[in-house]
């Protein structure tokens, strides 16, 4: 059997059966240690389950535009500090070579290596941050969004060590000190908790898109349900050449890059 994630149902049952036989404890034992990693069965079974994701069209995204981060950060009361060391970011740009370090960049022109690409929480299907959190303050919702419960976070920052994408920020000081204007429709955070992109969980329930998607005049970000074969995002992923960051780690990001 190949060691990829597409273990079908029968094989999975066989595996857990063997595991139970040798005393690992069968399905319960298995799932206890692998929270947030449901075994992928047939993709048809996931049809009715939502899994939200983003597709970033790197060609459409102008290098010097910051509209999406501006709107996101102001709508979510994300503070800005002079010191880069303790900065808080939900969606921002990084040079392409930093987002995809495993790519073979040495024959590419400097401009291509350094073209700024958007980065944001990947809302992974197998999120390491959720796996390591000792209080379930960060958890995976049924619709695939990786959420933070700021009420529960103890600020141990294990999730920041666990995230292989650098998507998480910690409130080293009172975030209100870094906010000149408050969006009254959204809370701030408090000192000593970790925060990150929530894929606009407060907003998307009624069918609307996250702020970054709405704001982008170039249509460079597509938002939708990855499990729906009819969705725009799913079709684009099927048709185009898309990448995910550090795919080899098995986290299965829900944020795709069209290159």
């Amino acid at each position, binding site marked *: 059997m190949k060691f990829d994630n597409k273990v079908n149902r029968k094989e999975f049952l066989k595996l857990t059966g063997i595991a139970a036989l040798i005393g690992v404890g069968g399905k319960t034992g298995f799932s*206890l*240690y*692998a*929270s*947030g990693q449901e075994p992928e069965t047939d993709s048809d079974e996931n049809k009715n389950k939502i899994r939200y994701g983003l597709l970033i069209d790197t060609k459409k995204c102008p290098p010097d535009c910051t509209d999406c981060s501006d709107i996101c950060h102001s709508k979510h009361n994300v503070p800005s500090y002079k010191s880069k*060391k*303790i*900065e*808080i970011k939900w969606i921002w740009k*990084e040079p392409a*070579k*930093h*987002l995809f*370090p*495993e790519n073979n960049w040495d024959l590419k022109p400097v401009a291509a290596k350094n073209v700024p690409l958007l*980065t944001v929480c990947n809302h992974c299907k197998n999120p*390491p941050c959720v*796996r*390591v*959190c*000792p*209080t*379930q*303050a960060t958890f995976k919702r049924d619709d695939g969004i990786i959420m933070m419960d700021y009420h*529960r*976070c*103890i*600020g*141990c*920052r*294990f999730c*920041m*060590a*666990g*995230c*292989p*994408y*650098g998507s998480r*920020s*910690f*409130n*080293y*000081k*009172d975030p209100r000190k870094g906010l000149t204007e408050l969006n009254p429709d959204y809370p701030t955070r*408090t*000192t*000593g*908790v*970790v925060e990150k992109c929530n894929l606009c969980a407060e907003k998307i329930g009624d069918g609307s898109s996250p702020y970054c998607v709405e704001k982008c005049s170039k249509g460079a970000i597509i938002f939708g349900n990855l499990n729906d074969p009819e969705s725009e995002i799913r079709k684009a992923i099927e048709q185009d050449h898309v990448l995910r960051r*550090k795919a080899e*780690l*098995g*986290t299965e990001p829900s944020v795709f890059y069209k290159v």
Partner: protein
Amino acid sequence: MIEKAFEGGKKYKLWLLFLLAIIAAGIYQYSIQLEEGLSITGMSRDVSWGFYVANFTFFVGVAASAVMLVIPYYLHHYKKFSQLVIFGEWLAVGSVVMCILFIFVDMGQPQRALNILLHPTPNSVLFWDVIVLFGYLAINLFVAWVTLRKEKANLEISKLIKFLILLSIPWAIAIHTVTAFLYSGLPGRHAWLTAIMAPRFLASAFAAGPALLILLLMVVKKLTYFKPEKEAFGTLAKIMLYGMLVNIFFYGLEIFTAFYSNIPSHKHTLTYLFFGLNGYSKLVPYVWTSVAFGFVSVFMLLFPAIRANHKTLAVAATLIFFSTYLDKGLALVIGGFIPSPLETITEYTITGPEFTISAGIWAIGALLVTLAYRMTLNVRQS
């Protein structure tokens, strides 16, 4: 029995007062940290664990190393350790308390600490670490206390205590293994993602713990009536030597795998630590100091005459202690965050308040160990 801990001369009282003063300074700085947040430390978005977690990791090792006395004495009936075992157990108690405090001061929302138990999460290694650390503290505190009482009353220890002592052996291995799992189970942190993290931790612990114990026992020997046997020191020195040799060997394995495979992400942290990366090299002097101390001490300890001489043994133990402290405490934790997942380098420098709070915790550990040692010595004398 506890009142015996406070009986001592003027110098003893002054030492206690000195420790209390440092603790007070630490508490004062911590109150500022509670108000201001962790921005008073040198930690950052990229290096999100620093001196606190480094010390936590190191002292878990010191705590675990108590088994290096328990195994020879209780499993192999090595009588030379009969008087010393309890000192190892008290050192474990002091170290675990320090570990718990280092984790506590590292938390952004310490008032929510109980959330770890209110929302138990078996898939989180940190959850298990909290459980095993408190368990280890309870076992050692109970065992050391009861064995001392039995010794005072000239009684044999009960079966339950014997069971707990035996339990403390795998438990000690567990605390350090679980602590290693905090690091070695994270995808994308290449310096930590190594299957020999736990054995490495144990090896360096079995070097650092006995080193500290040798130094403490030398102080005890100098200041009190209690003169541990020469052979006991010699045995501890050998344990320390073997621990350090295995530790260096394991480190060599890491270097081989990273550089021979030539995978960039596996080389980055080691390159940063030993040579600096992209012009950033703050940890380089510390790492080479650690290497030098490690090799010099191992070389020294190979000679029986150096192990037998208290002065040279003290030098070697000090070198091993600082070598492992710099390596496992500082370089391992901070180096693991460099470069960041976004391939950038943010360096870490400890701040004054951060150091003061840490010093306060060391002083609490020292105070507990002092009181426990004093109590043991006074009880035995009477």
